[in-house]
């Protein structure tokens, strides 16, 4: 992807620090109580002063997760608390907006707490524009991952140095939304895809043709009478090229299995259970499983029986139905 000329301009902004944004209110019991009520937090360390006095902290503390909340902007015309600098800490995002990347989605944030915050502390934070990714395309659209780092401080009186109390990595994706296809919904499109076809050669044609005749044909050596699967041009036991097949009963048991969840690949169902079946004739064959009950895992050793299903109007495949486990 060719680099935009203006990228050097925004890359030069990396590392820039943006001012102080103050909390509107000192850390206080009322806001802590309201936050705990709304969030369903019942820890008495945050709301019960008598209890808090008996803990190692000796007094009420604020829930650490409130750290970002204390310094959030307000709603009015003057949205930043007094003392805050006026410079927009999201300058990099404003810049990208001007280049034609209007949409934004928060991607992830990591919070780190140095210590508990106590009642009466006055907090502020500074912001560093930490990094910008190369241009990326995701399902949402094309744009840039922008990472900001906020550092939170408790302001001290009497000329003492302010104390760092926590920090936050905050990453957003600033992007041009992808254009939605105008016609056909994706699901409909997916439904049109067909199952991959097997590779058929002179060595295994009998096997695949058998399914159309609703037969499970397992290769048999006409010389030594042993079975083998997958089919081959020669007997792996006696090296005879004189091979035929035996029609198996289609009954067997589950030797192993998987349940596929991801990635979703059309036209297959998700989840897609696949069994490794040990046929009663003694050879194994993998195939789709049917008859799973929701929430009940298949059991190794469970009896199965073949059924033949036509897919896409042209491909007959064996599927093995899980039979009920008999109570003993």
């Amino acid at each position, binding site marked *: 992807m060719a680099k935009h000329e203006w990228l050097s301009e925004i890359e030069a902004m990396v590392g820039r620090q943006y001012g102080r944004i103050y909390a509107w209110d000192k850390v206080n019991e009322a806001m802590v109580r309201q936050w705990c009520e709304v969030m369903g937090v019942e820890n008495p360390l945050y709301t019960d002063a008598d209890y808090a006095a008996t803990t190692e902290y000796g007094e009420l503390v604020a829930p650490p997760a409130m750290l970002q909340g204390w310094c959030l902007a307000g709603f009015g015309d003057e949205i930043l608390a007094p003392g805050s600098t006026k410079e927009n800490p999201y300058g990099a995002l404003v810049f990208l907006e001007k280049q034609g990347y209007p949409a934004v989605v928060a991607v992830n944030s990591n919070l780190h707490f140095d210590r508990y915050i106590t009642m009466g502390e006055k907090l502020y934070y500074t912001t560093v524009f930490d990094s910008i990714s190369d241009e990326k395309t995701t399902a949402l659209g094309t744009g840039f991952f922008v990472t900001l780092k906020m550092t939170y401080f408790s302001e001290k009186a009497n000329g003492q140095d302010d104390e760092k109390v926590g920090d936050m990595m905050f990453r957003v994706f600033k992007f041009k939304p992808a254009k939605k296809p105008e016609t056909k919904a994706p699901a409909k499109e997916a439904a049109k895809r067909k*199952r991959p076809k097997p590779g*058929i050669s002179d060595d295994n044609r009998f096997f695949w043709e058998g399914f159309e005749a609703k037969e499970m044909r397992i290769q048999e050596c006409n010389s030594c009478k042993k079975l083998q699967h997958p089919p081959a041009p020669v007997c792996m036991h006696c090296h005879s090229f004189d091979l035929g097949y035996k029609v198996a009963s289609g009954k067997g048991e589950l030797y192993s299995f998987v349940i596929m969840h991801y990635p979703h690949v059309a036209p297959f169902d998700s989840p897609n259970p696949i069994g490794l079946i040990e046929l009663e004739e003694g*050879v194994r064959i993998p195939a789709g499983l049917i008859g799973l009950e929701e929430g009940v895992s298949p059991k190794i050793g469970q009896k199965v029986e073949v059924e033949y299903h036509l897919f896409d109007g042209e491909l007959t495949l064996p599927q093995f139905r899980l039979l009920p486990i008999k109570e003993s």
Partner: protein
Amino acid sequence: MNESISGKAAIAGLGATEFSKNSGRTELRLAMEATLAALEDAGIDPSEVDGFCSYSVDKVPEYEISRLLGCNEVKFFSQIPHGGGAACAPIMHAAMAVASGVAKTVVVYRAMNERSWYRFGTGDYGFASSPVFENINYGYYMPHGFHTPASWVGMFAQRYMHEFGATSEDFGRVAVASRDFAATNPAAFFYEKPITLEDHQASKWICEPLHLLDCCQESDGAVAMVITSVDRAKTLKQKPVVIKAGAQGIAEGQQIMTSYYREDITGLPEMGIVAKELYTQSGLGPNDFQTAIIYDHFTPFVLPQLEEFGFAERGKAKDFIRAGHHERGGKLPINPHGGQLGEAYIHGMNGVAEAVRQVRGTSVNQVDDVENVLVTAGTGVPTSGLILGAE
């Protein structure tokens, strides 16, 4: 006279790019960066290279590297098939070439933009139906949607769990230990990002019985090494890392990822063949290693590998893992770079690189007093292994 390759050749130079999800440059460039770094590390002039070996799935041809290096005379080149099963074999082939005198200075490399250019696990490969063997073979799986490496491994894992009582938590313990090492390896993608067993259990199903955190990463990057004779390596810049043994293995009933038709599918007999040959060549045994690089594209196959090499009895690797022997500080810490689960997936070549650092004593997660390191290659496929050690 010792007719084996043991002790005849050494890894004299090591180079790598950074590991990422999008290298932003071509695979050829990655291969050249790693190769030049390896030659610089060894103190060998590029024109001296007279041999190459890589994976058959690597898309960078040795003749282009040779042209760009300005090699005078290249007399040996080979490629090893079967994906990650080739992780150790190029070094073995290079050692064979050096030991036999066919070549003197062999570069091995693996360069890939696997994550950003093509992904191995999409399940959507567009196999054709013409009667070449590959189509015939995958035709038994693809029409059912049984089409990802995770699902093929899962089929073995489910049976292994059933027979030996291993659990998803046991697989998780492998991932947790790898991520612990990665957390202190700045070259790892998951640097400073350890996980807990709870994280592992809570991660989404990719394919039952495999969770997301049972699966290795997808990565871009390159690793290269230079192999020459032990005698010459002693005159070069780095401490020689001696190739004490190298082996490949194909066992009865072998297929690529789908050897389901063997009497028993809970073991990795091809790795057993590699183990026997490595121990025979080197005269070493399971008690002679201070650390090991055990191929970890998916966690479940780490367990039978520990059994095939005699670190645990059949079916007992779960006890080895539960005791934490594989962890940092354990009796056999495995994958101290963080493995392919934690550092990067460079098809196992980054694991060989870690073994080199462990023998040199230069790893960020250095194990004490390393004399011998076992390295294994991809599991479920025709595979390979190495024993590297100090002189």
